[in-house]
């Protein structure tokens, strides 16, 4: 079962994990990304490409499901203005075994950072704004799954 949600509203990670756990299997892994405060940051503005986002996330989930034979995948990604400390993304996988659950969850996050059409803008406390640039470490992490 694949569940994809893209929305402004916050999510209840506990409830999502519980729902996925109910599908059975011996292992559930999850990752929550949240807005990191560095002292200067007020909020992030998350933009996306609505016509493409869900399709791209579903493709990532399907790839993970094929590779690790999962009972279920949940990916939730928020959009809009998110303050420091707020949740941005949830990736959760359910499988028979620990390694499959953890690896597939990690795979989903690495892919998401390079092929899901989201863009982050940083809004600083002094009012200045700047678009976040891609990081080579994210590109390398996504590629490493092909090796």
């Amino acid at each position, binding site marked *: 079962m694949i569940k994809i949600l893209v929305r402004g509203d916050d999510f209840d990670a506990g409830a999502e994990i519980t729902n996925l756990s109910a599908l059975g299997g011996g292992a559930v892994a999850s990752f929550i990304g949240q807005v990191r405060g560095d002292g200067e940051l007020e909020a992030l503005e998350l933009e*996306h490409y609505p016509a493409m986002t869900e399709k791209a996330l579903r493709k990532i989930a399907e790839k993970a499901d094929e590779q690790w034979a999962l009972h279920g995948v949940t990916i939730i990604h928020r959009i809009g203005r998110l303050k420091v400390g707020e949740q*941005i993304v949830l990736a959760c996988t359910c499988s028979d075994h620990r390694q499959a659950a953890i690896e597939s969850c990690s795979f989903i996050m690495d892919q998401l950072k390079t*092929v899901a059409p989201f863009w982050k803008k940083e809004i600083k406390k002094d009012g200045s704004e700047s678009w976040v640039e891609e990081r080579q470490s994210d590109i390398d992490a996504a590629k490493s799954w092909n090796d």
Partner: protein
Amino acid sequence: MTCQINIVYFSWVKERLGRDQELIVYPAGVETIDDLVGHLKGTDSIYQHVFSDLKKLRFALDQDFVGLEAPLGNSEELAIFPPVTGG
């Protein structure tokens, strides 16, 4: 013969062009994204400015990632944006 395609822009590409989408009619001979970007650069200096470094841009045709060399074919929507930064 002329063709047309809807182009959508995101992130700083959208901000610098001052628009989020536009319908572009292009002439015969324009077959790939590279051709289309070249055509646009010839029509207005703002495209020369925003599309000056193509290595900083990514492209999707009908919501699938493609390279600059991809043929436009019968695609309805081209998206031009910087590398994604979600997650």
